[in-house]
């Protein structure tokens, strides 16, 4: 009798969790199905499972076409790769010296890192935009930053800003150095390694897992950050995939002809890389939340 109760419990757990998982996955299923048809077919259908009668890859052809989504897709990839590189370099180098070296003003840097986490982005979002439009000698500005539009609508804005949220990873890396045996670095020093060789050859290699946590979480959050390019860049070819999707999605609210399938195809392509990263590296993503927490 007790065994039956156990099976019943296990069975109902499976059932409930399957339903829950289905509800979570449903928007993706809908999006993928919808992306496989033409605007006219989707518009007339309206079902909850838009299974295409005349399946077409035309929308995906648009996503990867030169006049379509190719440029933003490439920009998204470059942007995520660039910020991953910068953040990992910053976290490893700064984290290492903060953990190992003793110097005056160290406490100042540590306090600055913590203080930066408290400042909400709302306080800098508008003034940043104004200041970027006023950068001297850029975009037709004179030396006082007047007359032009600065770096607004300039593709450089995909790569230049560095938020102070990224300092969290410096802190995380310096914490991880606490459990790293000093003897290894000392041995490398005896062998004649200087600071750069110790960090790049010894520490970076042996600290692989924590570097993976930083790299994967940074790549994901930058790939998904639609706001910065959305605010600073109007030109689709200089923008990113997720920023372009933000424009398209907010236009869906307006009256007129809506091309849902095209949006769904772009969205599917924007979701696939993070999805694959999650499938293969979820260990590091989960470790990142557990240790850093704030990112999410």
């Amino acid at each position, binding site marked *: 009798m007790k065994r039956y109760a156990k099976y019943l419990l296990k069975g109902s757990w499976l059932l409930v969790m399957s339903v829950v998982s289905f509800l979570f996955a449903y928007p993706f299923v809908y999006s993928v199905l919808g992306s496989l048809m033409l605007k006219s077919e989707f518009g007339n259908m309206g079902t909850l499972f838009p299974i295409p009668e005349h399946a077409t890859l035309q929308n995906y052809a648009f996503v990867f076409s030169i006049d379509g989504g190719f440029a933003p897709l490439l920009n998204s990839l470059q942007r995520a790769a660039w910020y991953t590189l910068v953040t990992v370099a910053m976290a490893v180098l700064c984290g290492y010296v903060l953990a190992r070296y003793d110097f005056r003003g160290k406490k100042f840097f540590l306090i600055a890192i913590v203080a930066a986490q408290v400042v909400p982005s709302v306080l800098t979002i*508008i003034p940043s935009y104004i200041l970027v439009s006023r950068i001297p000698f850029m975009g037709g500005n004179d030396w006082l930053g007047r007359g032009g539009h600065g770096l607004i609508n300039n593709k450089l804005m995909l790569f230049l800003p560095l938020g102070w949220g990224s300092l969290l990873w410096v802190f995380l890396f310096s914490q991880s150095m606490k459990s790293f045996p000093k003897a290894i670095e000392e041995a490398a020093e005896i062998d004649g390694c200087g600071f750069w060789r110790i960090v790049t050859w010894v520490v970076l290699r042996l600290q692989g897992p924590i570097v993976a946590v930083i790299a994967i979480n940074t790549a994901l959050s930058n790939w998904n950050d639609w706001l910065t390019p959305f605010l600073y860049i109007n030109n689709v070819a200089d923008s990113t995939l997720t920023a372009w999707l933000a424009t398209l999605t907010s236009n869906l609210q307006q009256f007129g002809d809506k091309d849902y399938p095209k949006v769904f195809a772009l969205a599917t392509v924007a979701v696939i890389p993070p999805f694959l990263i999650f499938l293969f590296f979820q260990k590091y993503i989960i470790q990142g939340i557990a240790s850093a927490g704030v990112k999410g």
Partner: protein
Amino acid sequence: MTATVNKVRGERRRPSARRRREVRTAYLVLLPFFLYIAIWNLVPLLFGLYLGFTEYNALSSTPKWIGLANFKTFFSVPEYGALMWRQIWMGLLALAMNTVISFALALALNVSSKVKGLFRTAIYVPNVSAVSATTAVFVALLNPLADQGLNRILTSLGGAAVTWNYSAFWMTFWIVTYFVWQRVGPAAIIWLGGLQAIDPSLYEAARVDGANFWQQVRYITLPGLKFIAMYILLTGIIGAMQMFDVVMFISKGNPFGQTDVLMYRIYRDGFINFNLGMAGAESLALGLVTVVFALGYLWLQRRNEDE
């Protein structure tokens, strides 16, 4: 043996040359990064503190100092108070739902099963997907026509079609639903970590003493998760206080501004109406409220570490 010798030798060399080299390296590494970040963040922060006290109506004009006038407007026009209040309660509602549902999911996932990883992936993937990429589905499903999207179920069940975007209740409902769908994953994982950190022998001892399931939850699980709960709530509220993307994509603040929030208004005042001084004042007001929450969080975290 060699390690001790090295250590002794290292310590003898330390005082001057080595120490000076370390200080130099540290500053050479830290200063460029920190200065660069200060340029992109600290300078705008300081400029933002000034901006709220100015009248500044187009990017091409110059800000004009007008003292507290923007703040007087903010506190005397009831609309701003309503927007701030809605930002807080809508954020709190979304956060409360997220906290409760993520806890339930964590309890459900705290078992040993081969398919657990599959379920975990399903609830987590929305969080690694861009908000701008996943909201379009919700917009499509909330089509007001009777034979489209969710209305199709309602009408086929014999109900009346709902004009979703004319109803403040339903728009709020879907904003909160989207928020939970998108953010429940990490919260569930954090809860799960907390659940697994509780010493299993406590439950065994309780069972020996005859405690039932609910008593175990009440007296062992919940007290053991106190700080995790604080953590989820406080980091969550900082995010909820800046939330405007979901509102912008799903309801645009409609119907008639009844789901509008202060952060969305700041975005519109700044980037669409170019009422930059007022946007600055609104930012300071919202920022101040958020910082209070954030400091509360840090204080709790410190207390947690001391224990």
